[in-house]
């Protein structure tokens, strides 16, 4: 770049004063905004006492919860103070009433071996002595002196408490040894009993067996066909509750659909009276616009809580809450859409002597209907997402079920199942709505092109 003389610089400055002599608020605005944001963030740190909260939070739970989304565990317990050692499984264990897993081995001398991860991670024990094997190390634990005693060095994956030895083996599980019992937790990848629960006669059968039973097997339950029985068993699976989950999911979809559609139907005529360029009275326009603002500003939560009290919990309350909020939202966007129309078609129809309704029908509606439908679809899409969450306050649908499954912090696999279903529904509805809106925007585009051509 050629060097500029001082005069050239001055002349440029004189020719473009708006670049060099900007008003103070423009020069210092960004800096002020930046400082303000920074100060606000410091305030927020203090307000939420963020450092303290983060310091005291249990981050070690996060990987634990996340593994529970896609895995399940079995927890056999062995009492050592009984005459004979027998494994005991908790009630409603994923293995059913007669568990006999091949990773619990009863040895010839009365001792037990539990293989948590093949031979590499296992525990072998009798009433006096336990041997824990993991990470290439073998750790003997003596149980005779009234408390568990580890002979030799204690590796870092074992925690020796006063009355209990805890051996952590990573994802696959852990072993807890006390003087009178051995507790094992073995973790499996996947979802247990997703199709049939342990009460079902089809439980534990391979897919081939189930199919052949359904096709040609003898009736497992007299009076019902095997197909109907299998369907009923899946639908009423006690652990996964497919039937209930799917019904609740449908409720959520219905809530969003019904609320948005009814909101649109009510907002549509009102919008004509609220639009400044169409309404017969300015006062009416103002009243209606404030009414829309009111319906929007009374939060969907407030509506949901009120209607839950009025109608009782369920999708009716949720639909009504979305309906009331949507009257406000759609009324606002419809009337704004009407205020942005081109007035010429309307004047044209008016000049033919048509009455009020005909003017709206042929002069206004062809222009706004595609826009209205597009905006309604957009709201429908966003309400499908929002309907999940108002369900959690009792307004019906899958939200409450999700919330209850989460509250115990033990059903994370069920939570994940529902999340996957919700994601699927949102994905499908997004695509439907996007497809329809693309078709419509082509209509709008064509309309604008024809108008432009005609001037």
């Amino acid at each position: 770049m050629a060097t500029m003389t001082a005069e050239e610089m001055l002349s440029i400055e004189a020719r473009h004063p708006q670049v060099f002599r900007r008003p103070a608020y423009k020069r210092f605005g960004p800096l002020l905004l930046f400082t303000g944001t920074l100060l606000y963030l410091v305030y927020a740190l203090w307000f939420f006492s963020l450092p303290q909260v983060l310091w005291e939070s249990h981050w070690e739970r996060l990987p634990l919860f996340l593994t529970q989304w896609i895995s399940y565990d079995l927890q056999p317990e062995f009492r050592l103070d009984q005459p004979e050692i027998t494994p005991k499984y908790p009630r409603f264990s994923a293995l059913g009433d007669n568990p006999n897993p091949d990773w619990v081995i009863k040895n010839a001398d009365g001792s037990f071996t539990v293989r948590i991860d093949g031979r590499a991670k296992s525990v072998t024990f009798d009433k006096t002595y336990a041997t824990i094997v993991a990470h290439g190390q073998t750790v003997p634990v003596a149980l005779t002196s009234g408390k568990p005693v580890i002979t030799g060095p204690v590796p870092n994956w074992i925690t020796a408490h006063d009355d209990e030895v805890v051996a952590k083996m990573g994802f696959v599980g852990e072993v807890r040894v006390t003087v009178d019992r051995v507790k094992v937790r073995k973790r499996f990848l996947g979802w247990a009993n997703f199709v049939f629960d342990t009460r079902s006669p089809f439980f534990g059968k391979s897919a081939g067996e189930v199919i052949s039973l359904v096709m040609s097997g003898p009736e497992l339950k007299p009076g019902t066909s095997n197909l109907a029985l299998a369907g009923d068993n899946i639908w009423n699976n006690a652990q996964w509750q497919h039937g209930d989950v799917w019904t609740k999911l449908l409720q959520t979809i219905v809530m969003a659909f019904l609320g948005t559609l009814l909101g649109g139907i009510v907002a549509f005529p009102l919008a004509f009276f609220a639009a400044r360029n169409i309404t017969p009275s300015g006062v009416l326009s103002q009243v209606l616009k404030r009414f829309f603002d009111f319906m929007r500003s009374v939060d969907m939560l407030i509506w949901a809580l009120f209607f839950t009290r009025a109608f009782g919990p369920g999708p009716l309350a949720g639909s009504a809450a979305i309906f009331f909020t949507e009257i406000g939202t759609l009324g606002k966007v419809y009337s704004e859409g009407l205020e942005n129309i081109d007035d010429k078609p309307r004047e044209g129809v008016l000049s033919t002597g048509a009455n009020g309704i005909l003017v709206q029908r042929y002069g206004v509606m062809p222009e706004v209907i595609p826009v209205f439908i597009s905006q309604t679809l957009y709201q429908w899409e966003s309400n499908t997402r929002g309907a999940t969450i108002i369900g959690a306050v009792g307004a019906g649908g899958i939200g409450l079920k999700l919330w209850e499954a989460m509250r115990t912090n033990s059903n994370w696999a069920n939570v994940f199942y529902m999340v996957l279903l919700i994601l699927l529904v949102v994905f499908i509805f997004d695509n439907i709505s996007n497809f329809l809106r693309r078709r419509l925007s082509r209509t709008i585009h064509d309309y604008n092109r024809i108008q432009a051509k005609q001037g």
Partner: protein
Amino acid sequence: MTLSVTAASGATHQTADAWRRQTSLRRLYTVLGVGLLLAAMLSSMWFADEANAGHFFDRLPHILDFLSWLVPKDWNDVWRALFDIASPRDTGTQEFNFPLGRVYVWGGFYVPEYFELMLTTVNVALVSTFIGFIFAVPFSFIAARNLTPHPALRLVVKRFMELLRAFPEIVIAGLFAAIVSTGPIAAIIAIGLHSIGALGKLFYEINENIDMRAEEGLTAVGANWFERVRFADLPQVLPNFVSYTLLRVEINVRASTIIGAVGGGGIGEELKLSISRGFGAKTLALVLLLFTTIFIIDQFSAWLRRKLVGEQAFMMGS
């Protein structure tokens, strides 16, 4: 509309016939579509009514009954509840223990409980919008077709943002509530993650519609990707970005109230408690405060957006 054809020429007849055929076909489609929608609506209504605890027509005559608890015995109690002033009705019950929640700041000067809760809710919304904005801006430049540094990276970021947008906020809030053990932080994380996805999508759609000449100019002088984004693209899109972020603040205030009601703290939780126990004066005070706050935030944000990008800020979805 009908066309009256007086000219007897064959061509006119043909045109008129074609027109008639077309309109009757369109009318048929319209009737079919509306009929289908009506059927879907009626069956949905039936389904919602069946699944509900109380049925529509059973409850309709009593719809206003439940409002009777809402009307306080003394309207002044609403103001007292709002500003934590002792009520003459206070006998130690939860319904009228207004001064209990005072948050003392300096000596005898206090912030009323509900204002403090409202502040929490608004702060949750602001901080989570900020998180959304900070992450959505770089993501949006990667995800825009015309600006992306690499197509594969674009796809990854786009899918990631889609996932964040669709993932139910309530699950993230529940998960983090078990980890950080206080509601508002979990709510911030949940709404913040959602905002990244939501803002990111709007932002990259803006980015895909920018004027590329500034970008080409900077490419010609050898600017790298960051310089191009910073000096050619960002100045074009920033007003729109800020406008959408303000819109997001409005949405997030509502989201933070709702998350609050399911355990995220703030005013939502108090409102849910108050309604479920039938505390008339407290409920009215809370509704009044929430309504006013949301109204003010909406109006302020609308005014600011109008100043920033003009009427364009109010065209949505089309």
